[in-house]
């Protein structure tokens, strides 16, 4: 091997090393579909195909109408849960509620969630009589199909979780409307007497936790027009103006 060949080989080897550093390996991108990968084959450019009308995927046959629609045979909202409710179920509901509902409805269901504070139309509090007395099927219907400004959450929350959330909403409604006498005696003894003046510490603690943050930057967002221009095709948005649409 002449020294020239050696040099050429070294240069080539060096190039190879340099290239191997920046170029991705050839099998790193394979001509196959992975979730959400674009497709050149389908006109809409998606590899994930939408379900055809009337398709029932395996294991998704929704025969239990009460469970899957929240309505009985007559089409009225069901009043009782179509599923057994226990503590774990409510806790699951709490977790899901905090993920999907709390942004607007607030952690305690008062309708003052973070998104609402940023300008979204405030939903009603759960702690009004109308909702306290509404059948559970009503909540199920709202989650599944949307209501007012709220779009449906059918894709984000699975039916079982919807019921869990409803169970948790019921718990919220109960706790926000609880009477001190509902507490067991030993717990009640720790609660300050009703009507008793707050201690200075309690006052300070309350003042330091305002409902609305005092940080001036908190609301520092460009002002949006009060009248939404609407998003064409968005279900529920068009009905927003009437605020309380007739259902069905």
């Amino acid at each position, binding site marked *: 091997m002449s020294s020239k060949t050696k040099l050429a080989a070294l240069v080539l080897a060096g190039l190879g090393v340099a290239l191997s*550093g920046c170029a991705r390996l050839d099998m790193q991108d394979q001509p196959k579909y992975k*979730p959400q990968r*674009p497709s050149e084959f389908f006109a809409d450019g998606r590899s994930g195909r939408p379900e055809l009308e009337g398709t029932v995927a395996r294991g998704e046959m929704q025969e239990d109408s009460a469970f899957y629609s929240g309505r009985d045979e007559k089409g009225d909202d069901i009043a009782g849960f179509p599923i057994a409710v226990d503590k774990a179920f409510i806790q699951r509901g709490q977790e899901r509620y*905090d993920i999907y509902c709390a942004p607007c409805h607030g952690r305690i269901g008062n309708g003052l969630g973070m998104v609402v504070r940023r300008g979204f139309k405030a939903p009603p509090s759960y702690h009004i009589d109308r909702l306290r007395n509404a059948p559970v099927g009503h909540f199920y219907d709202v989650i599944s199909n949307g209501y007012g400004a709220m*779009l449906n959450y059918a*894709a984000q929350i699975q039916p079982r979780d919807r019921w869990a959330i409803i169970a948790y909403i019921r718990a919220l409604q109960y706790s926000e409307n609880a009477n001190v006498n509902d507490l067991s005696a030993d717990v009640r003894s720790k609660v300050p007497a009703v009507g008793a003046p707050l201690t200075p510490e309690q006052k300070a603690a309350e003042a330091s936790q305002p409902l609305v943050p005092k940080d001036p930057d908190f609301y520092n967002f460009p002002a*949006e027009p009060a009248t939404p221009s609407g998003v064409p*095709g968005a279900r529920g948005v068009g009905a*927003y103006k009437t605020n309380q649409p007739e259902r069905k």
Partner: protein
Amino acid sequence: MPQLFKSSANSFARSSIVVAVLVLGGLGGALFELIADSSYATRQGDAREQPIPFSHAHHVGSMGIECRYCHTGVENGPHAMVPPTKTCINCHSQIWINSSTLEPVRESYRTNESIKWTKVHDLPDFVYFNHSIHVKKGVGCETCHGRVDRMPLMYQNASLEMRWCLECHRNPEKFVRPRQFVTKMGYEPAEPQETLGPKLVREYNIQKLETCWTCHR
């Protein structure tokens, strides 16, 4: 015989050998490691251009929207899922509706055409990865994706090198957290990880999956 070389040739010849050895051996090797392992090659920390400058820092950091609000697939599927446009519209039907920045979102919703997001965490296609099992076994979002709540534009927090994957697969107890804190950003273990980690590994029955076919199948 006249001298072929000047006396300076001696030091030149010797130093050139030393330099050649250094350059080819040491520097070559170091350079290789540097290039193969650099953020240039792995694209670590490299914020990607997106059709809409979506800010996790805003949505997660200041609004406190939970990861799973959008990434609904993370618990039950291999893929965390970039949310459909509909999920954006949940709020942006009313907020920022006149913003030109968000026009592509409305456009997408009108026309039913996908927004072409740029994939940030792009594993090689010969790697099988499943989000759900990691979430189930208590691997926090933050462990791989970093402080997403502080990322104005999404970037790849980890190198995504195989070495990096193995770091956790070989020593899961150093990284796992209780399941309820999986999506928590800035999580601090309540007790030292040295004692909590092994406890969780036992409780969640976490195995040290190091075989090739764990990921390459």
